[in-house]
């Protein structure tokens, strides 16, 4: 008899995030559909928790309290641990996000769990949970066995495909909030303002990323990258040369000390492919490089390459993409 | 030296120099070489990090490094750019006589303010009459009360245009020949000191070299280092100290040349395969490796001996002579490995040959080194 697996949900725009659905799929594949139990905490989780039903999850816990909005991780960890214990779950899975990783970190201590983050594949190996995850900026992959009574795993974004939507109902059980020790509610912030990054998808979430580098030559030319990204529905990234030069804010930087992304498609425009940049995107599924220098290191790691003048190729590509997508 | 490994401290120093060479020097090496430009902004950064006043003790504001540590640093800097490293070495060379023969009062007076801010020093020994024959120098220092009046001309002086402090060797009594040579610390700003235009050199073009003329330059006797007639011995003892770092400089150039050649040989294909798989190239690379390893170890051992208080004349001469000849040969073969591309200014290897050449000439031409080696060697058999 497989013990239940608890999937901790997170909201995006008021509904279960894609990362949460991916977590459900991973949990279902490793524990069996009937053993997956959902969990959602927030100021009003019941409405969004119905989304679990549409993923084929039959039961879910909801923890309801206005203090649960925002990252009050200590309290959430406590609630997750007690919900997991109440059904005898031995595995907690959470989607690839900041919240997910932070929660797993706390569960490592609070729930005495064997943990792993950034996991790309999840399976069982006897009594242990086996995880695979990229390390060293995606230049290597490690396999680990999580051993012990409890395990908690945070996935990497896009590690699994969200389950197909089904018409399903989820039975909700309330988790008592009173059990949370008062000390864990210690107020730690006064006022959170979520500021949208831009019109496009966020860099770490996006399944397509178009990045520009030094080859773009000047800030005024960067719109070529933006336009290609819009045509593909992609997020925009940049190499460190670009953010150093101030053509785009630091938040655009993809690299060792910037964001690490693992989209389905990464288009590197005018980027030479220095190792610091590669460490931010090498685990992308498909890499396309556009550069005028045939000896640029990026061509060694790309799947497809165009050696040409980006000022001609990129506009032509944008136009072709628009035509192909019927825009 | 039974243990060839570096201490963590030595590794940290070497890493600092390596990082500076690769991030601050190397990116500008080609441009400075092309324009024959003295990159003061880079030397200022070197000063800020403690990579300029390498041989000056910490109590006077220098980095106070032993010769071995200096060599570790010099090799890394030379990997970035030989010319820029010559500026540093020539600067340390100029300060060395003060360290060797300056009185405690002179050391305090000259070195403390000098090291407290960015300053450059120049060592003025060589004359048109002969670099290898300093005893024949014609620059004279005439005693006049408690001053000396210096007149003459020094040529090929590294750092002359930018130096604020000059280490000048002049003869107080030409009838004594080399026994009259005397050393003086002369401020560049002294009246009568004129620096000529920059020499146009084959290599080390990021280093500035020029002629200095002394027209009745008055220098207080208190700025004389050691006694009258002490200068020749002081110059020789100074060069004893600085010979080994030249071996390190040459090793850095040789290592860079070999790295370029090896990397290129793995990428460049002819006859359907990388040229690294052709025997002709493999033999070249093997010879390069032998030369680089030998140059480094000879330099290390000489530095180690001198740090232990030995004179190390034989070992340092061998190191300087061997490493500089090796640098020239390795750079030459590196160009050959690149073939036609190696001949193009656009590729980095031809600069390395031009830089390597000077290491066979300056700080004691290799002909002189061989005479010294023979003399020291035969002494052991005599």
């Amino acid at each position: 008899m497989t013990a239940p697996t608890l999937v901790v949900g997170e909201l995006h725009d008021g509904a279960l995030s894609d990362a949460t659905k991916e977590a459900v799929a991973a949990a279902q594949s490793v524990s069996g559909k009937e053993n997956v139990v959902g969990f959602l905490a927030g100021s009003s989780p019941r409405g969004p928790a119905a989304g679990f039903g549409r993923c084929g999850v039959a039961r879910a816990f909801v923890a309801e309290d206005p203090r649960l909005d925002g990252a009050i991780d200590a309290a959430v960890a406590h609630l997750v641990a007690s919900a997991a214990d109440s059904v005898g779950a031995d595995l907690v899975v959470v989607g690839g996000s900041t919240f997910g990783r932070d929660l797993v970190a706390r569960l490592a201590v609070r729930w005495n769990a064997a943990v792993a983050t950034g996991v790309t594949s999840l399976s069982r190996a006897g009594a242990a949970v086996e995880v695979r995850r990229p390390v060293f900026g995606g230049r290597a992959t490690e396999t680990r066995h999580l051993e012990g009574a409890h395990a908690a795993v945070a996935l990497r974004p896009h590690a699994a495909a969200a389950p197909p939507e089904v018409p399903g109902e989820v039975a909700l059980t309330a988790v008592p909030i009173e059990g949370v020790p008062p000390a864990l509610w210690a107020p730690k912030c006064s006022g959170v303002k979520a500021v949208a990054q831009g019109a496009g998808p966020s860099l770490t979430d996006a399944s397509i990323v178009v990045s520009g580098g030094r080859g773009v030559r000047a800030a005024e030319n960067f719109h070529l990258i933006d336009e290609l990204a819009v045509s593909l529905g992609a997020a925009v990234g940049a190499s460190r040369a670009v953010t150093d030069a101030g053509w785009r804010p630091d938040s655009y930087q993809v690299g060792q000390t910037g964001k690490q992304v693992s989209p389905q498609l990464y288009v590197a425009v005018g980027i030479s492919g220095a190792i610091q940049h590669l460490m931010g995107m090498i685990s992308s599924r498909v890499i396309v490089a556009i550069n005028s220098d045939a000896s640029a290191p990026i061509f060694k790691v790309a799947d497809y390459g165009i050696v040409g003048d980006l000022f001609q190729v990129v506009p032509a590509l944008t136009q072709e993409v628009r035509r192909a997508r019927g825009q | 030296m039974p243990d060839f490994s570096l201490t963590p401290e030595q590794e940290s120093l070497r890493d600092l120099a390596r990082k500076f060479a690769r991030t601050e020097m190397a990116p500008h090496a080609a441009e400075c070489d092309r324009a024959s430009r003295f990159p003061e902004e880079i030397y200022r950064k070197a000063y800020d990090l403690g990579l300029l006043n390498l041989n000056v003790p910490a109590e006077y504001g220098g980095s106070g490094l032993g010769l071995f540590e200096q060599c570790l640093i010099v090799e890394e800097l030379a990997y970035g750019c030989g010319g820029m490293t010559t500026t540093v070495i020539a600067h340390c060379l100029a300060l060395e006589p003060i360290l060797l023969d300056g009185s405690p009062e002179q050391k305090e007076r000259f070195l403390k303010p000098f090291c407290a801010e960015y300053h450059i020093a120049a060592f003025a020994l060589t004359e048109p009459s002969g670099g290898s024959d300093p005893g024949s120098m014609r620059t004279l220092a005439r005693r006049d009360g408690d001053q000396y009046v210096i007149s003459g001309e020094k040529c090929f002086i590294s750092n002359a245009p930018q130096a604020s402090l000059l280490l000048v060797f002049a003869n107080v009594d030409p009838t004594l020949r080399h026994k009259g040579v005397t050393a003086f610390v002369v401020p560049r700003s002294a009246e009568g000191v004129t620096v000529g235009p920059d020499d146009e050199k084959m290599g080390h073009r990021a280093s500035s070299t020029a002629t200095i003329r002394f027209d009745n330059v008055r220098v207080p006797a208190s700025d004389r280092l050691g006694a009258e007639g002490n200068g020749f011995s002081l110059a020789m003892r100074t060069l004893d100290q600085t010979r080994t770092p030249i071996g390190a400089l040459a090793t850095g150039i040789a290592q860079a040349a070999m790295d370029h050649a090896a990397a290129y040989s793995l990428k460049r294909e002819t006859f359907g395969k990388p040229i690294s798989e052709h025997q002709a190239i493999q033999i070249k690379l093997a010879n390069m490796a032998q030369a680089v390893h030998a140059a480094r170890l000879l330099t290390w051992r000489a530095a180690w001996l001198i740090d232990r208080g030995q004179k190390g004349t034989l070992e340092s001469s061998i190191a300087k002579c061997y490493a500089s000849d090796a640098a020239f040969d390795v750079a030459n073969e590196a160009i050959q490995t690149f073939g036609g591309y190696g001949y193009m200014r656009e590729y980095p290897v031809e600069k390395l040959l031009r830089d390597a050449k000077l290491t066979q000439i300056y700080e004691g031409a290799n002909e002189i080194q061989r005479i010294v080696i023979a003399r020291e060697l035969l002494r052991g058999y005599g």
Partner: protein
Amino acid sequence: MEIVVCVKPVPDAETRLRVAADGTTLDIEAVKFVLTGYDESAVEQALLLKEANPGSKVHVVSAGPPPRTEEVLRASLALGCDLATWVETPPGVAPDPVSAARALARAVSAVPHDLVLCGKNAGDDEAGLVAGALGELLGVPDFSSVLDLRWDAAASRLRFQRSTEAGMETWEASLPCIVALQQAWNDPRTAKLPSILKSRRLPIAKVPPDPAPPAAGTTRPTKFELPPPRTGAKLIEFKTPEEAAQKLVKVLKEEAKVFP
């Protein structure tokens, strides 16, 4: 302000990765371990906060095996940290992140700590677990993916941004707390030579690891794999930019199957 910064020695970015003989981990022979990435940025941030708030001190802490952990502590001291503490673990493989967090918690709780800084994750295992685990162990809040960290002394508030999936959040918090920095200082300071020499003689306090760690879940590496060597890009041949664009879109649709 008493600032504690947690660092981890990590293989240099240029390291050629090799698989150890038993196939389970990285071969660490001849690997150079350094202070780098987000940890280097965390030290830089700590020093900037110290300079902006006179009277503050920076205490650098690390848990790990000799000699690399000591080297990274000395590198931090050379950069300007005031004090260093080392929780020495057995030579060889580094402790896993949660064990490291437990060790760090022992070190941190033994010293004054208003603000505990660490990097978002380490460049090798990229687990990003230390801040959260430390938060549980020390009983203080932790904030991850932080950028633009500032201390508002007048209001006694830490102000920062957090980069999350929702976008850029603006936060303020009171001390004590833990901050995991996503900040990358594009020009972190370089230690000067005299500081490097001096750092070799500075004392490093030692705190022993917990002799009896609690029974907890463990993770065991079973395989370490390098991807098959990339053969290099298939270059698209073209005569005009339009032809290049058409061919690329076709290959992305039909061959790579990634066209949206």
